[in-house]
């Protein structure tokens, strides 16, 4: 059967072309493609790894940021509270000081008023005394125009003096 008999010429051509194809393609073709596929695979793997790492890092940074924010918020709250307290205290202090000052002023004014009143009274008393002396002088001058009435008065004054002495002693 001719079909089942390999032709020598065709065997030769097949050997030649297959050898050439094999040498060229198996040396310069497929190894390059396989290497390229492998290196791309490696690149993808490393990229995935890097992405995972970056994600983890980002998570860390986010957590850190969150912590930082919370701390800042806490600090803010603290500061605000502090400020409120300080304000309260200052206001209280001011109020207290103002009260004290007011009291002091009122007291001083009162004291001054008392002193003034005292002085006025003193003055008035003096005036009254002077007036009384003057009036008494005039009265005495009229009444003590004679001798008797002068003696009488001296006696009476003496008595009164004595009496006064006695009461003081007792």
């Amino acid at each position, binding site marked *: 059967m001719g079909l089942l008999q390999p032709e020598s010429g065709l065997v030769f051509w097949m050997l030649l072309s297959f050898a050439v194809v094999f040498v060229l393609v198996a*040396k310069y073709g497929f190894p390059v*493609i396989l290497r390229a596929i492998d290196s791309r695979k490696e690149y993808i793997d490393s990229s995935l790894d890097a992405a995972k790492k970056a994600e983890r890092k980002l998570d860390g940074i986010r957590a850190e940021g969150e912590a930082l924010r919370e701390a800042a918020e806490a600090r803010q709250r603290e500061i605000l509270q502090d400020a409120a307290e300080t304000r309260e205290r200052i206001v209280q202090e001011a109020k207290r000081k103002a009260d004290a000052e007011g009291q002091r002023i009122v007291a001083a004014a009162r004291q001054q008023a008392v002193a003034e009143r005292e002085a006025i009274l003193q003055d008035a008393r003096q005036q009254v005394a002077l007036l009384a002396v003057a009036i008494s002088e005039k009265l005495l001058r009229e009444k003590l125009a004679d001798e008797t009435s002068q003696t009488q008065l001296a006696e009476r004054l003496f008595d009164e003096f004595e009496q006064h002495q006695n009461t003081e002693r007792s």
Partner: protein
Amino acid sequence: MSRFNHNTTVLALLCAFFFLLPLPLRAQSESEEINTKQIVLGHIGDAYEWHMGTFGGWECTIPLPIIVHSPTSGWHCFSSARLHDEGAEFEGLRIAEEGPYEGKIVERQADGSDLRPLDLSMTKTAAGLLINSLLIIVLILGCARWYRRRRPDSPAPRGFVGMIEALVSTLVEDLIKPCVGPSYRRFAPYLLTVFCFILINNLMGLIPIFPGGANVTGNIAVAFILALATFLAVNLFGRRTYWKEIFWPDVPTWLKIPIPIIPLIEFVGIFTKPFALMIRLFANIMAGHAVILSLTCVVFVTAKMGTLINGSMTVVSVFFSIFMNCLELLVAFLQAYVFTLLSAVFIGLAQEEGHTETEIKPSNHLKS
């Protein structure tokens, strides 16, 4: 509704086409008998020239170089156009019309007998083989060039290079790696080359016009060399365990001594495996070509049986040809795949280190 109208129009046109098609051929077919066997065998066999068709008496033929070496007259190299006419003779050489060398170039000797010289002519199959080999080299080296110009972080290829990459990585990951085992990197280029070689040759064989159409992988010489390559790859790189398995297998001693039954069977197995590869590829592709050609010939064979039968048989023939061509596309891929798979399994068996894994790995893969 419009879709239905559209379909019926197409169908009517197709029918008209099929019924009109045989008409010009009838005149010719009446004058001479159609020899289907000759047509089919002429195609799946080999020829010294590339005949593409006869159009109204004008034969469209590509002449191919004839290279022969005769022990008496030395080298001859000339165009096959010189032997185109029947009975033509050039430099004492002619194409034998009968006898044991029918259809081959012979040289008339002094004593009147025919001698077949060493025939290295670039026949139709050889020319097709060279064209397809060139195509493979261009395609694969083109792809490799694409990769050479890029870095690992360039985007993945698209289009043709992407297709080749998908094919290559599928073959390597799903076929070569599980079948060959740890040393798969060493054999991957060979197996991929074999796959591409068979696939391209199969596919080109299915194209009916010039650059394709040669029955390359359906030729026993081509299949023989491919099987020989696998034979060499298996046996030249076989490890110690592989040879021990053949000459001193793990069987009861009385099977090895005094009559080495099992070693003998194993030894014959070395040759039957690639032989089966060869026959499988050759028979599948040849049969596919034969079936498609026979179906096409139905049109011309029935030309004498009247318009009705011829017309209806033409429709049947065309539909079956389309079906067979689709099937052959599948077979073209499948045979390349099977050849590569079995080569990988045989190489893998010869690469095994230990005995325990020998049966597990290939059978596992074949099941899945």
